[in-house]
Protein backbone atom coordinates (compact mmCIF):
# COMPACT_ATOMS: atom_id res chain seq x y z
CA UNK A 1 0.00 0.00 0.00
CA UNK A 2 1.28 3.43 -0.89
CA UNK A 3 -0.34 6.51 0.61
CA UNK A 4 -0.36 9.67 -1.49
CA UNK A 5 0.75 13.10 -0.37
CA UNK A 6 -2.93 14.16 -0.40
CA UNK A 7 -3.91 11.23 1.83
CA UNK A 8 -1.24 12.16 4.41
CA UNK A 9 -2.42 15.78 4.36
CA UNK A 10 -6.01 14.63 4.84
CA UNK A 11 -5.10 12.34 7.78
CA UNK A 12 -3.08 15.14 9.36
CA UNK A 13 -6.04 17.49 8.99
CA UNK A 14 -8.40 14.97 10.61
CA UNK A 15 -5.90 14.60 13.47
CA UNK A 16 -5.49 18.41 13.71
CA UNK A 17 -1.74 18.22 13.12
CA UNK A 18 0.10 20.92 11.19
CA UNK A 19 2.90 19.16 9.31
CA UNK A 20 5.95 20.92 7.92
CA UNK A 21 6.39 20.37 4.14
CA UNK A 22 9.46 18.19 4.77
CA UNK A 23 7.53 15.97 7.22
CA UNK A 24 4.95 14.90 4.63
CA UNK A 25 7.17 12.51 2.57
CA UNK A 26 8.58 11.02 5.79
CA UNK A 27 5.10 10.07 7.01
CA UNK A 28 4.06 9.03 3.52
CA UNK A 29 6.85 6.46 3.58
CA UNK A 30 6.54 5.24 7.17
CA UNK A 31 2.73 5.08 7.34
CA UNK A 32 2.66 3.16 4.05
CA UNK A 33 5.10 0.64 5.48
CA UNK A 34 3.19 0.37 8.76
CA UNK A 35 -0.05 -0.31 6.88
CA UNK A 36 1.70 -3.02 4.84
CA UNK A 37 3.01 -4.51 8.07
CA UNK A 38 -0.37 -4.57 9.83
CA UNK A 39 -1.88 -5.92 6.59
CA UNK A 40 -0.52 -9.31 7.74
CA UNK A 41 -3.64 -9.50 9.91
CA UNK A 42 -5.58 -10.47 6.79
CA UNK A 43 -3.87 -13.88 6.95
CA UNK A 44 -5.78 -14.79 10.11
CA UNK A 45 -9.11 -16.57 9.76
CA UNK A 46 -11.38 -14.65 12.10
CA UNK A 47 -14.72 -15.67 10.58
CA UNK A 48 -15.86 -17.42 13.77
CA UNK A 49 -14.37 -14.92 16.26
CA UNK A 50 -16.06 -12.14 18.19
CA UNK A 51 -13.88 -9.02 18.54
CA UNK A 52 -12.38 -8.57 22.01
CA UNK A 53 -14.41 -6.11 24.05
CA UNK A 54 -12.44 -6.19 27.32
CA UNK A 55 -8.98 -7.58 28.18
CA UNK A 56 -10.45 -9.57 31.08
CA UNK A 57 -13.02 -12.21 30.18
CA UNK A 58 -16.44 -11.63 31.70
CA UNK A 59 -15.75 -8.07 32.87
CA UNK A 60 -18.40 -5.50 32.09
CA UNK A 61 -18.18 -1.74 32.13
CA UNK A 62 -18.93 -0.66 35.69
CA UNK A 63 -21.29 2.28 36.26
CA UNK A 64 -21.12 4.56 39.26
CA UNK A 65 -23.94 5.98 41.32
CA UNK A 66 -25.28 9.23 39.85
CA UNK A 67 -24.10 11.44 42.69
CA UNK A 68 -21.83 14.47 42.86
CA UNK A 69 -18.24 13.38 43.55
CA UNK A 70 -16.26 16.37 42.29
CA UNK A 71 -15.72 19.61 44.10
CA UNK A 72 -15.09 22.96 42.43
CA UNK A 73 -11.37 23.10 41.66
CA UNK A 74 -11.52 25.50 38.73
CA UNK A 75 -8.95 27.94 40.07
CA UNK A 76 -6.43 25.18 40.67
CA UNK A 77 -7.12 23.61 37.28
CA UNK A 78 -7.03 26.90 35.40
CA UNK A 79 -3.60 27.66 36.86
CA UNK A 80 -2.38 25.34 34.06
CA UNK A 81 -4.37 27.09 31.28
CA UNK A 82 -2.42 28.92 28.54
CA UNK A 83 -4.95 31.79 28.81
CA UNK A 84 -7.80 32.13 31.31
CA UNK A 85 -9.75 35.10 32.58
CA UNK A 86 -12.68 35.49 34.96
CA UNK A 87 -12.97 31.70 35.28
CA UNK A 88 -13.13 31.25 31.50
CA UNK A 89 -10.67 29.64 29.08
CA UNK A 90 -9.70 32.07 26.32
CA UNK A 91 -9.24 30.98 22.69
CA UNK A 92 -8.94 32.94 19.40
CA UNK A 93 -12.20 34.47 18.20
CA UNK A 94 -14.49 31.78 16.73
CA UNK A 95 -17.43 33.89 15.41
CA UNK A 96 -16.83 37.18 13.59
Amino acid at each position, binding site marked *: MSLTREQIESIAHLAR*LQLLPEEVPVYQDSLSRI*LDFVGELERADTSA*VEPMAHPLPGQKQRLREDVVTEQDHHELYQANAPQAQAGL*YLVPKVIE
Partner: protein
Amino acid sequence: MSNTSLHRKSLAELAEGLRKREFSSVELTRACLDRIEASQPQLNAFITVTREQALAEAAQADQALAEGRAGPLTGLPIAHKDIFCTSGVLTTCASRMLSNFVSPYDATVVARLKAAGMVMVGKTNMDEFAMGSSNETSYYGPVRNPWNTDLVPGGSSGGSAAAVAARLVPASTGTDTGGSIRQPAALCGVTGLKPTYGRVSRYGMIAFASSLDQGGTFTVSAEDAALLLRAMAGFDPADSTSVDEPVPDYVATLNEPLRGLKIGLLKEFFDKGLDADNERCIREALAVYEKLGATLREVSLPALPLSVPAYYVVAPAECSSNLARYDGVRYGYRCENPRDLMDMYKRTRGEGFGAEVKRRIMTGTYVLSAGYYDAYYLKAQKVRKLIANDFARAFGEVDVLMGPTTPTPAFPLGAKTADPITMYLNDIYTIGANLAGLPAISIPCGFTPQGLPVGLQIVGPHFTEARLLNAAHLFQRETDWHRRVPEAFA
Protein backbone atom coordinates in the same frame (compact mmCIF):
# COMPACT_ATOMS: atom_id res chain seq x y z
CA MET B 1 27.56 1.70 59.00
CA SER B 2 28.71 3.73 56.02
CA ASN B 3 26.09 5.48 53.93
CA THR B 4 28.18 4.89 50.84
CA SER B 5 27.04 1.26 50.70
CA LEU B 6 23.32 1.97 51.12
CA HIS B 7 22.75 1.89 47.37
CA ARG B 8 23.78 -1.78 47.15
CA LYS B 9 20.85 -2.83 49.33
CA SER B 10 17.45 -4.04 48.23
CA LEU B 11 14.22 -2.40 49.32
CA ALA B 12 13.63 -5.21 51.84
CA GLU B 13 17.13 -4.78 53.31
CA LEU B 14 16.75 -1.00 53.48
CA ALA B 15 13.39 -1.39 55.25
CA GLU B 16 15.07 -3.55 57.87
CA GLY B 17 17.91 -1.03 58.28
CA LEU B 18 15.39 1.77 58.84
CA ARG B 19 13.49 -0.30 61.42
CA LYS B 20 16.73 -1.13 63.26
CA ARG B 21 17.74 2.56 63.10
CA GLU B 22 21.03 1.74 61.36
CA PHE B 23 20.42 4.86 59.25
CA SER B 24 17.62 7.39 58.88
CA SER B 25 15.28 8.00 55.97
CA VAL B 26 16.82 11.47 55.59
CA GLU B 27 20.30 9.91 55.25
CA LEU B 28 19.03 7.31 52.80
CA THR B 29 17.08 9.86 50.77
CA ARG B 30 20.03 12.24 50.63
CA ALA B 31 22.26 9.39 49.41
CA CYS B 32 19.76 8.70 46.57
CA LEU B 33 19.45 12.38 45.64
CA ASP B 34 23.24 12.76 45.52
CA ARG B 35 23.62 9.68 43.30
CA ILE B 36 20.82 10.87 41.00
CA GLU B 37 22.37 14.31 40.57
CA ALA B 38 25.86 12.89 40.01
CA SER B 39 24.54 10.46 37.36
CA GLN B 40 22.51 12.95 35.31
CA PRO B 41 25.31 13.94 32.84
CA GLN B 42 25.94 10.25 31.98
CA LEU B 43 22.46 8.72 32.19
CA ASN B 44 19.82 11.49 31.97
CA ALA B 45 17.46 9.14 33.83
CA PHE B 46 15.46 11.93 35.48
CA ILE B 47 13.33 14.81 34.19
CA THR B 48 12.65 16.32 37.61
CA VAL B 49 14.42 15.80 40.95
CA THR B 50 12.30 16.80 43.98
CA ARG B 51 15.08 17.29 46.53
CA GLU B 52 13.40 19.60 49.04
CA GLN B 53 10.07 17.81 49.01
CA ALA B 54 11.84 14.46 49.34
CA LEU B 55 13.90 15.54 52.33
CA ALA B 56 10.76 16.93 54.01
CA GLU B 57 8.90 13.66 53.41
CA ALA B 58 11.92 11.71 54.70
CA ALA B 59 11.97 13.77 57.90
CA GLN B 60 8.28 12.95 58.40
CA ALA B 61 9.05 9.27 57.81
CA ASP B 62 11.81 9.39 60.42
CA GLN B 63 9.29 10.89 62.83
CA ALA B 64 6.85 8.05 62.10
CA LEU B 65 9.63 5.47 62.56
CA ALA B 66 10.62 7.04 65.88
CA GLU B 67 7.03 7.04 67.11
CA GLY B 68 6.34 3.45 66.08
CA ARG B 69 3.81 4.49 63.43
CA ALA B 70 5.81 3.11 60.51
CA GLY B 71 4.60 0.56 57.96
CA PRO B 72 6.75 -1.79 55.88
CA LEU B 73 7.51 0.88 53.24
CA THR B 74 7.84 3.96 55.46
CA GLY B 75 10.88 6.07 54.62
CA LEU B 76 11.93 4.14 51.51
CA PRO B 77 12.78 6.27 48.45
CA ILE B 78 11.05 5.75 45.11
CA ALA B 79 11.09 7.47 41.72
CA HIS B 80 7.97 7.72 39.58
CA LYS B 81 7.87 7.53 35.82
CA ASP B 82 6.94 11.00 34.57
CA ILE B 83 3.65 9.59 33.21
CA PHE B 84 2.18 9.50 36.74
CA CYS B 85 0.53 12.73 37.87
CA THR B 86 2.15 14.15 41.00
CA SER B 87 0.38 16.94 42.84
CA GLY B 88 2.27 20.25 42.65
CA VAL B 89 5.13 18.67 40.69
CA LEU B 90 5.90 19.00 36.97
CA THR B 91 4.39 16.03 35.06
CA THR B 92 5.59 16.12 31.45
CA CYS B 93 5.16 12.62 29.95
CA ALA B 94 8.50 13.57 28.32
CA SER B 95 6.63 15.77 25.83
CA ARG B 96 6.92 19.41 24.87
CA MET B 97 3.11 19.31 25.00
CA LEU B 98 3.18 18.93 28.81
CA SER B 99 6.54 20.62 29.46
CA ASN B 100 4.79 23.25 31.61
CA PHE B 101 2.14 21.03 33.24
CA VAL B 102 2.07 21.02 37.04
CA SER B 103 -0.41 18.33 38.02
CA PRO B 104 -3.20 19.48 40.36
CA TYR B 105 -3.61 15.97 41.80
CA ASP B 106 -1.82 12.68 42.54
CA ALA B 107 -2.28 9.49 40.52
CA THR B 108 -3.75 6.70 42.68
CA VAL B 109 -0.44 4.79 42.50
CA VAL B 110 1.43 7.87 43.74
CA ALA B 111 -1.13 8.55 46.47
CA ARG B 112 -1.05 4.93 47.71
CA LEU B 113 2.73 4.78 47.92
CA LYS B 114 2.80 8.20 49.59
CA ALA B 115 0.20 7.01 52.12
CA ALA B 116 2.41 3.96 52.74
CA GLY B 117 5.17 6.39 53.75
CA MET B 118 7.39 6.16 50.66
CA VAL B 119 9.51 9.17 49.75
CA MET B 120 9.34 10.40 46.15
CA VAL B 121 12.79 11.55 44.98
CA GLY B 122 11.83 12.56 41.44
CA LYS B 123 10.25 11.84 38.08
CA THR B 124 12.00 9.61 35.57
CA ASN B 125 12.66 10.16 31.89
CA MET B 126 10.76 8.06 29.33
CA ASP B 127 9.78 7.88 25.68
CA GLU B 128 7.36 10.69 24.80
CA PHE B 129 3.85 9.63 25.91
CA ALA B 130 5.35 6.13 26.45
CA MET B 131 5.67 5.61 22.69
CA GLY B 132 9.02 4.01 21.99
CA SER B 133 11.26 1.07 22.86
CA SER B 134 14.59 2.85 23.32
CA ASN B 135 13.88 6.03 25.30
CA GLU B 136 15.07 8.07 22.31
CA THR B 137 11.75 9.87 21.66
CA SER B 138 11.87 11.92 24.90
CA TYR B 139 11.66 15.70 24.51
CA TYR B 140 14.28 15.80 27.29
CA GLY B 141 16.84 13.71 25.39
CA PRO B 142 17.63 10.00 25.51
CA VAL B 143 18.41 7.97 28.62
CA ARG B 144 21.58 5.88 28.43
CA ASN B 145 22.14 2.32 29.59
CA PRO B 146 24.20 2.12 32.82
CA TRP B 147 25.94 -1.05 31.56
CA ASN B 148 27.28 0.81 28.53
CA THR B 149 26.36 4.43 27.92
CA ASP B 150 26.64 4.03 24.12
CA LEU B 151 23.58 1.79 24.32
CA VAL B 152 19.87 2.44 24.90
CA PRO B 153 18.20 1.41 28.17
CA GLY B 154 15.06 0.24 26.35
CA GLY B 155 11.73 1.95 26.64
CA SER B 156 9.39 3.40 27.21
CA SER B 157 10.19 3.35 30.97
CA GLY B 158 13.93 3.75 30.26
CA GLY B 159 14.64 6.25 33.03
CA SER B 160 12.95 4.10 35.68
CA ALA B 161 14.90 1.02 34.57
CA ALA B 162 18.26 2.82 34.36
CA ALA B 163 17.69 4.46 37.77
CA VAL B 164 17.32 1.08 39.50
CA ALA B 165 20.09 -0.58 37.43
CA ALA B 166 22.57 2.17 38.41
CA ARG B 167 21.27 1.92 42.00
CA LEU B 168 20.26 5.60 42.06
CA VAL B 169 17.03 4.49 43.75
CA PRO B 170 16.03 1.12 45.21
CA ALA B 171 12.73 1.10 43.28
CA SER B 172 10.72 2.96 40.68
CA THR B 173 7.34 2.81 38.99
CA GLY B 174 6.69 2.29 35.31
CA THR B 175 3.92 1.57 32.86
CA ASP B 176 3.65 -1.23 30.33
CA THR B 177 1.45 -0.95 27.22
CA GLY B 178 3.41 -3.30 24.91
CA GLY B 179 6.49 -4.14 26.99
CA SER B 180 7.49 -0.75 28.41
CA ILE B 181 8.37 -2.22 31.84
CA ARG B 182 9.68 -5.68 30.88
CA GLN B 183 11.81 -4.69 27.86
CA PRO B 184 13.83 -1.95 29.65
CA ALA B 185 14.06 -4.16 32.78
CA ALA B 186 15.65 -6.87 30.59
CA LEU B 187 18.03 -4.47 28.82
CA CYS B 188 19.09 -2.87 32.14
CA GLY B 189 19.31 -6.07 34.23
CA VAL B 190 16.59 -5.35 36.81
CA THR B 191 13.31 -6.96 37.89
CA GLY B 192 10.29 -5.50 36.05
CA LEU B 193 6.70 -6.50 36.86
CA LYS B 194 3.64 -5.79 34.70
CA PRO B 195 0.54 -6.82 36.66
CA THR B 196 -2.77 -8.07 35.24
CA TYR B 197 -4.78 -5.42 33.37
CA GLY B 198 -6.98 -3.70 35.97
CA ARG B 199 -4.88 -4.83 38.98
CA VAL B 200 -3.26 -1.40 39.49
CA SER B 201 -5.32 1.77 39.06
CA ARG B 202 -4.82 3.83 35.90
CA TYR B 203 -6.23 6.97 37.54
CA GLY B 204 -3.75 9.81 37.04
CA MET B 205 -1.56 7.68 34.79
CA ILE B 206 -1.50 9.65 31.54
CA ALA B 207 -3.36 7.52 29.00
CA PHE B 208 -1.70 6.08 25.88
CA ALA B 209 -3.78 2.97 24.95
CA SER B 210 -6.43 2.50 27.60
CA SER B 211 -7.20 -1.19 26.97
CA LEU B 212 -3.49 -2.10 27.26
CA ASP B 213 -1.92 0.35 29.78
CA GLN B 214 -0.95 -1.05 33.17
CA GLY B 215 1.24 0.36 35.94
CA GLY B 216 3.96 -1.71 37.59
CA THR B 217 7.38 -1.75 39.23
CA PHE B 218 11.14 -1.79 38.73
CA THR B 219 13.12 -3.27 41.63
CA VAL B 220 16.33 -5.12 42.42
CA SER B 221 14.46 -8.30 43.36
CA ALA B 222 11.12 -10.08 43.09
CA GLU B 223 10.78 -9.79 46.88
CA ASP B 224 10.92 -5.99 46.53
CA ALA B 225 8.33 -6.10 43.73
CA ALA B 226 6.03 -8.08 46.05
CA LEU B 227 6.43 -5.45 48.78
CA LEU B 228 5.53 -2.64 46.36
CA LEU B 229 2.69 -4.38 44.54
CA ARG B 230 0.98 -5.19 47.84
CA ALA B 231 0.78 -1.42 48.47
CA MET B 232 -0.04 -0.32 44.88
CA ALA B 233 -2.65 -2.85 43.80
CA GLY B 234 -6.35 -2.88 44.54
CA PHE B 235 -9.73 -1.57 43.53
CA ASP B 236 -10.07 2.13 42.72
CA PRO B 237 -13.50 3.58 41.96
CA ALA B 238 -11.79 6.38 40.01
CA ASP B 239 -10.64 3.92 37.29
CA SER B 240 -13.59 2.39 35.44
CA THR B 241 -11.60 -0.73 34.48
CA SER B 242 -10.06 -1.27 37.92
CA VAL B 243 -10.99 -4.77 39.11
CA ASP B 244 -12.58 -5.41 42.49
CA GLU B 245 -10.50 -8.47 43.43
CA PRO B 246 -8.86 -8.95 46.84
CA VAL B 247 -5.10 -8.18 46.94
CA PRO B 248 -3.24 -11.22 48.26
CA ASP B 249 -0.17 -10.92 50.48
CA TYR B 250 2.42 -11.34 47.72
CA VAL B 251 5.25 -11.42 50.28
CA ALA B 252 3.77 -14.31 52.28
CA THR B 253 3.87 -16.76 49.34
CA LEU B 254 7.36 -15.92 47.99
CA ASN B 255 8.94 -19.11 49.32
CA GLU B 256 6.30 -21.66 48.27
CA PRO B 257 8.13 -24.68 46.80
CA LEU B 258 8.11 -24.96 43.01
CA ARG B 259 8.03 -28.78 42.93
CA GLY B 260 5.59 -29.85 40.24
CA LEU B 261 5.30 -26.39 38.64
CA LYS B 262 4.44 -26.92 34.97
CA ILE B 263 6.38 -24.49 32.79
CA GLY B 264 5.39 -24.00 29.16
CA LEU B 265 8.09 -22.94 26.70
CA LEU B 266 6.61 -20.83 23.96
CA LYS B 267 7.69 -22.38 20.69
CA GLU B 268 7.07 -19.06 18.93
CA PHE B 269 9.54 -17.29 21.27
CA PHE B 270 12.49 -19.52 20.45
CA ASP B 271 12.48 -18.53 16.79
CA LYS B 272 15.19 -17.49 14.35
CA GLY B 273 15.07 -13.89 15.57
CA LEU B 274 16.40 -14.83 19.02
CA ASP B 275 20.03 -13.87 19.63
CA ALA B 276 22.24 -16.89 20.44
CA ASP B 277 23.60 -15.43 23.69
CA ASN B 278 20.09 -14.57 24.88
CA GLU B 279 18.96 -18.11 24.10
CA ARG B 280 21.89 -19.63 26.01
CA CYS B 281 21.04 -17.56 29.12
CA ILE B 282 17.37 -18.52 28.91
CA ARG B 283 18.17 -22.25 28.54
CA GLU B 284 20.48 -22.07 31.58
CA ALA B 285 17.74 -20.36 33.59
CA LEU B 286 15.27 -23.08 32.62
CA ALA B 287 17.75 -25.69 33.91
CA VAL B 288 17.68 -23.90 37.29
CA TYR B 289 13.89 -24.28 37.35
CA GLU B 290 14.20 -27.99 36.56
CA LYS B 291 16.59 -28.31 39.48
CA LEU B 292 13.92 -26.63 41.65
CA GLY B 293 11.48 -29.39 40.70
CA ALA B 294 9.58 -27.75 37.85
CA THR B 295 8.81 -29.59 34.63
CA LEU B 296 9.21 -28.11 31.15
CA ARG B 297 7.14 -28.72 28.07
CA GLU B 298 6.87 -26.95 24.75
CA VAL B 299 3.59 -25.21 23.92
CA SER B 300 2.54 -23.45 20.75
CA LEU B 301 0.42 -20.31 20.40
CA PRO B 302 -0.18 -20.20 16.65
CA ALA B 303 -1.78 -16.72 16.62
CA LEU B 304 1.05 -15.12 18.62
CA PRO B 305 3.16 -14.09 15.58
CA LEU B 306 0.31 -11.69 14.72
CA SER B 307 0.59 -9.86 18.05
CA VAL B 308 2.82 -7.05 16.78
CA PRO B 309 0.60 -6.19 13.77
CA ALA B 310 -2.54 -6.40 15.98
CA TYR B 311 -0.90 -4.11 18.54
CA TYR B 312 0.10 -1.55 15.90
CA VAL B 313 -3.56 -1.15 14.98
CA VAL B 314 -5.12 -1.20 18.46
CA ALA B 315 -2.53 0.93 20.28
CA PRO B 316 -2.34 3.78 17.70
CA ALA B 317 -6.15 3.79 17.42
CA GLU B 318 -6.55 4.26 21.17
CA CYS B 319 -3.64 6.73 21.21
CA SER B 320 -5.24 8.93 18.54
CA SER B 321 -8.39 9.08 20.63
CA ASN B 322 -6.65 9.66 23.99
CA LEU B 323 -4.29 12.33 22.66
CA ALA B 324 -7.14 14.31 21.12
CA ARG B 325 -7.40 16.04 24.51
CA TYR B 326 -4.21 18.05 23.91
CA ASP B 327 -5.74 21.06 22.20
CA GLY B 328 -3.88 24.02 23.71
CA VAL B 329 -7.01 25.24 25.51
CA ARG B 330 -7.03 23.94 29.07
CA TYR B 331 -3.43 23.01 29.87
CA GLY B 332 -0.10 22.29 28.27
CA TYR B 333 1.65 23.86 25.32
CA ARG B 334 -0.04 26.45 23.05
CA CYS B 335 1.55 27.77 19.83
CA GLU B 336 2.48 31.47 19.51
CA ASN B 337 0.09 33.95 17.85
CA PRO B 338 -2.63 31.64 16.48
CA ARG B 339 -4.56 33.12 13.52
CA ASP B 340 -7.77 31.36 14.43
CA LEU B 341 -9.00 28.33 16.38
CA MET B 342 -8.10 25.76 13.70
CA ASP B 343 -4.63 27.25 13.32
CA MET B 344 -4.24 27.08 17.11
CA TYR B 345 -5.22 23.39 17.29
CA LYS B 346 -3.05 22.37 14.36
CA ARG B 347 0.09 24.29 15.22
CA THR B 348 -0.19 23.51 18.95
CA ARG B 349 -0.33 19.79 18.15
CA GLY B 350 2.14 19.93 15.25
CA GLU B 351 4.72 21.74 17.39
CA GLY B 352 3.88 20.15 20.77
CA PHE B 353 4.15 16.48 19.74
CA GLY B 354 7.34 14.76 18.59
CA ALA B 355 7.78 12.74 15.39
CA GLU B 356 6.90 9.28 16.75
CA VAL B 357 3.82 10.50 18.63
CA LYS B 358 2.56 12.19 15.45
CA ARG B 359 3.20 8.97 13.53
CA ARG B 360 1.09 6.96 16.00
CA ILE B 361 -1.70 9.56 16.06
CA MET B 362 -1.88 9.54 12.25
CA THR B 363 -1.76 5.72 12.04
CA GLY B 364 -4.61 5.60 14.56
CA THR B 365 -6.58 8.30 12.77
CA TYR B 366 -6.27 6.40 9.49
CA VAL B 367 -7.32 2.98 10.84
CA LEU B 368 -10.35 4.50 12.58
CA SER B 369 -11.41 6.68 9.66
CA ALA B 370 -14.62 6.07 7.72
CA GLY B 371 -14.42 2.96 5.52
CA TYR B 372 -11.33 1.47 7.19
CA TYR B 373 -12.64 0.65 10.68
CA ASP B 374 -13.72 -2.94 9.87
CA ALA B 375 -10.60 -3.78 7.89
CA TYR B 376 -8.20 -2.62 10.58
CA TYR B 377 -9.58 -2.01 14.07
CA LEU B 378 -12.30 -4.66 14.10
CA LYS B 379 -9.97 -7.18 12.45
CA ALA B 380 -7.23 -6.43 15.00
CA GLN B 381 -9.65 -6.87 17.92
CA LYS B 382 -10.65 -10.26 16.47
CA VAL B 383 -7.01 -11.32 16.14
CA ARG B 384 -6.52 -10.09 19.69
CA LYS B 385 -9.25 -12.51 20.75
CA LEU B 386 -7.48 -15.36 18.91
CA ILE B 387 -4.28 -14.56 20.80
CA ALA B 388 -6.13 -14.40 24.15
CA ASN B 389 -7.78 -17.77 23.34
CA ASP B 390 -4.34 -19.28 22.56
CA PHE B 391 -3.02 -18.15 25.96
CA ALA B 392 -6.12 -19.51 27.73
CA ARG B 393 -5.65 -22.87 26.01
CA ALA B 394 -1.96 -22.97 26.99
CA PHE B 395 -2.83 -22.23 30.63
CA GLY B 396 -5.08 -25.28 30.56
CA GLU B 397 -1.89 -27.34 30.19
CA VAL B 398 0.78 -25.39 32.08
CA ASP B 399 0.96 -23.07 35.11
CA VAL B 400 3.24 -20.40 33.64
CA LEU B 401 4.90 -19.63 30.34
CA MET B 402 8.61 -18.81 30.14
CA GLY B 403 10.84 -17.43 27.44
CA PRO B 404 13.03 -14.48 26.55
CA THR B 405 11.84 -10.92 27.28
CA THR B 406 13.66 -9.47 24.27
CA PRO B 407 15.21 -10.93 21.10
CA THR B 408 18.56 -9.18 21.64
CA PRO B 409 20.50 -7.39 24.38
CA ALA B 410 20.67 -3.55 24.47
CA PHE B 411 21.52 -1.90 21.12
CA PRO B 412 23.35 1.35 20.29
CA LEU B 413 21.58 4.71 20.31
CA GLY B 414 20.38 5.54 16.82
CA ALA B 415 20.58 1.92 15.60
CA LYS B 416 16.82 1.51 15.10
CA THR B 417 15.48 5.05 14.77
CA ALA B 418 15.45 5.13 10.95
CA ASP B 419 12.81 2.42 10.51
CA PRO B 420 9.81 2.41 12.88
CA ILE B 421 9.01 -1.25 12.17
CA THR B 422 12.51 -2.39 13.22
CA MET B 423 11.93 -0.53 16.49
CA TYR B 424 8.42 -1.99 16.90
CA LEU B 425 9.78 -5.54 16.62
CA ASN B 426 11.74 -5.11 19.87
CA ASP B 427 8.50 -5.86 21.66
CA ILE B 428 7.75 -9.06 19.76
CA TYR B 429 7.89 -11.22 22.92
CA THR B 430 6.18 -8.79 25.31
CA ILE B 431 3.12 -7.51 23.40
CA GLY B 432 1.13 -10.75 23.68
CA ALA B 433 0.67 -10.36 27.46
CA ASN B 434 -0.72 -6.83 26.96
CA LEU B 435 -3.16 -7.90 24.26
CA ALA B 436 -4.48 -10.67 26.55
CA GLY B 437 -4.32 -8.54 29.76
CA LEU B 438 -1.97 -11.05 31.46
CA PRO B 439 0.57 -10.45 34.25
CA ALA B 440 4.24 -10.92 33.35
CA ILE B 441 7.63 -10.33 34.91
CA SER B 442 11.16 -9.98 33.54
CA ILE B 443 14.08 -11.02 35.73
CA PRO B 444 17.84 -10.94 35.11
CA CYS B 445 19.06 -14.41 34.06
CA GLY B 446 22.60 -13.94 32.76
CA PHE B 447 24.96 -11.81 30.72
CA THR B 448 26.26 -11.82 27.16
CA PRO B 449 30.04 -12.10 26.59
CA GLN B 450 29.94 -8.29 26.11
CA GLY B 451 28.68 -7.93 29.69
CA LEU B 452 25.10 -7.01 28.84
CA PRO B 453 22.18 -8.33 30.91
CA VAL B 454 19.57 -10.74 29.55
CA GLY B 455 16.00 -11.01 30.84
CA LEU B 456 13.85 -14.10 31.43
CA GLN B 457 10.13 -13.47 30.99
CA ILE B 458 7.48 -15.34 32.99
CA VAL B 459 3.81 -14.96 31.99
CA GLY B 460 0.87 -16.29 34.02
CA PRO B 461 -2.93 -16.44 33.89
CA HIS B 462 -4.91 -13.38 35.04
CA PHE B 463 -4.32 -12.38 38.69
CA THR B 464 -1.45 -14.84 39.30
CA GLU B 465 1.10 -12.18 40.29
CA ALA B 466 1.75 -14.15 43.52
CA ARG B 467 2.84 -17.22 41.53
CA LEU B 468 5.05 -15.16 39.18
CA LEU B 469 6.73 -13.42 42.12
CA ASN B 470 7.17 -16.76 43.91
CA ALA B 471 8.79 -18.34 40.82
CA ALA B 472 11.01 -15.29 40.31
CA HIS B 473 12.02 -15.15 43.99
CA LEU B 474 13.07 -18.80 44.15
CA PHE B 475 15.19 -18.30 41.01
CA GLN B 476 16.81 -15.29 42.66
CA ARG B 477 17.60 -17.38 45.77
CA GLU B 478 19.59 -19.75 43.50
CA THR B 479 21.32 -17.09 41.36
CA ASP B 480 22.93 -13.68 41.83
CA TRP B 481 22.37 -12.11 38.40
CA HIS B 482 19.95 -9.63 39.97
CA ARG B 483 22.60 -8.43 42.44
CA ARG B 484 25.12 -7.47 39.72
CA VAL B 485 25.72 -3.74 39.42
CA PRO B 486 27.37 -1.92 36.48
CA GLU B 487 31.00 -1.17 37.34
CA ALA B 488 30.64 2.58 36.81
CA PHE B 489 27.90 2.66 39.47
CA ALA B 490 29.21 0.08 41.92
